């Protein structure tokens, strides 16, 4: 219950962030602009619209996760609001989890709005919308859970600027991990070790990408979906545990 109270308070706080609305507006503009692009394209425009739409949901959601995520904890420490929370019977990990869940609620609402925008745009151009699209959005949300945890982890021990850079790097490289393997084959011993290290440590974010399936109407089995969700949850949990351990030892000064 304490965690939920903190989460809801965090959600309220996020709603006051202008950045949130700016990103949301940009996302909707991007999604909307696919109508214009589709009119300029000959032939296979549904594919393009779905591609742009899902990519926008993913990209802008990740930006929200990163730029609000890095400030979740550091802002509370800078503003000393954390003093009154931690001196109450609230464990530090409960505080951390509350902040995390609060941002997830924000992301859930935003993802819902962006998805509605996407569906409206697709309908406007008579593109069939099937369940697969929503499954793809669901997996994007699981990716948000991982990215938010990454941002939170970095922000427990480093500055907001570095947290933003590191988290963006994890996002970008996380989508390239399959390529890391290929890369490493062309490298020397050391390079290969580094690449392999990154390959195993960083999340494989491409696993959450079902764009191809939506475009080509390839069904994903529920077992596969469950596996992806499980992978995301396990990864996020691991990050949160590490973040919690670091946070527990920290001085709030």
């Amino acid at each position, binding site marked *: *219950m*304490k965690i939920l*109270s*903190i989460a809801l*308070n965090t959600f*309220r*706080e996020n709603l*006051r962030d202008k950045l949130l609305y700016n990103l949301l507006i940009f996302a909707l503009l991007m999604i909307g602009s696919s109508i214009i692009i589709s009119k300029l394209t000959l032939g296979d425009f549904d594919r393009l619209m779905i591609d742009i739409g899902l990519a926008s949901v993913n990209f802008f959601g990740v930006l929200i996760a990163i730029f609000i995520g890095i400030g979740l904890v550091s802002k509370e420490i800078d*503003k*000393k*609001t*954390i*003093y*009154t*929370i*931690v*001196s*109450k*019977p*609230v*464990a530090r990990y409960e505080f951390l989890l509350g902040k995390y869940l609060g941002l997830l609620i924000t992301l859930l609402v935003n993802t819902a709005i962006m998805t509605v925008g996407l569906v409206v745009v697709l309908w406007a151009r008579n593109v069939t919308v099937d369940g697969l699209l929503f499954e793809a959005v669901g997996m994007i949300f699981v990716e948000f859970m991982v990215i938010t945890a990454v941002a939170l982890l970095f922000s427990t021990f480093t500055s907001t600027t570095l947290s933003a850079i590191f988290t963006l790097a994890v996002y970008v490289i996380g989508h390239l991990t399959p390529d890391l393997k290929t890369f490493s084959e062309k490298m020397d011993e050391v390079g290969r070790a580094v690449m392999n290290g990154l390959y195993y440590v960083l999340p494989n974010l491409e696993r959450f990408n079902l764009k191809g399936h939506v475009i080509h109407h390839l069904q994903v089995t529920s077992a596969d979906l469950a596996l992806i969700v499980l992978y995301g949850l396990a990864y996020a949990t691991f990050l949160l545990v590490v973040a919690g351990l670091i946070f527990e*030892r920290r*001085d*709030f*000064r």
Partner: protein
Amino acid sequence: MKDSADVVIQIENLTKVFRVGFWGRKVTAVDRVSLAVHRGEVFGFLGPNGAGKTTTLKMLMGLIYPTSGHATIFGHPIGAPQAKAKLGFLPESPYFYDYLTGAEFLRFYGHLFGLRGAVLSKRIDELLDTVGMSHARDLQLRKFSKGMLQRVGIAQALINDPELVVLDEPMSGLDPIGRKEVRDLILRLKEAGKTVLFSSHILHDAELLCDRVAMIMKGRLVACGPVSDLLSGGSTHEVELVIERLVPEALERIRPFAKKVVVQGEQVMVVLASQQDVNHAIDVVRSVKGHVVSLTPHRASLEDLFIREAKTARQPVEVAA
């Protein structure tokens, strides 16, 4: 010695060394401080700016970890949820979630103690009334003045009806009326059997309120005990005498044994160090038909003690990195 059941806060050799700057230079903010706060007392934690008051309180609240030494609250180690459930804390110059209204703000903190519903609503109304903020229940904290924030900050510290209230500079930012109200509030808490620990550099407040005080300078405890003990151990009791219509030759008779003489137009102010000197001076005044306008005993104050200790306190202990 007090029964251990009556000890609410026990601090033993608490030390905090901060590392500052790029090279991690060590600064000892709190240096082997030991003291005990007893049940039902108002305890003042005094010291000049940068003495280490806030650092000590933050360690007690589990916000920063001691470098060495340890402390217990209600017999539990620092940070134990059992102890936190029974205490309230007002941080120094507090910042709060400014998008909440006064009532929402208190509701949020109530939830952290598992309070809800009608019980919580009633408590919020009571507290807003207690701190004189009922008119601001639906006003966002961003629109609060500094003193108003301080008041809801105090209300926040009392939301769980705590047995121990820890206040870091509760009077700062308050106008004279506000200060008086906070003093009354602290006395009411004491009457209700609560233990209050507050830090301050306003000695007058401490003198009026505290059963016992501790004085800290440059991180070290320099004095600790009942206010009366600390004061009686201090300077001699001086008396200030104001006289009118004193002929100059009479003044010259007083001057040799007076500690201080100040002539202000018609009036002469004389400071005398002993009862004997006072009697002597009055005899002189009466013999020349002068008027004694006032006679004021100079009680030694915490301020004297404070200034004396500040003079002898050493530089902060700094160890090269």
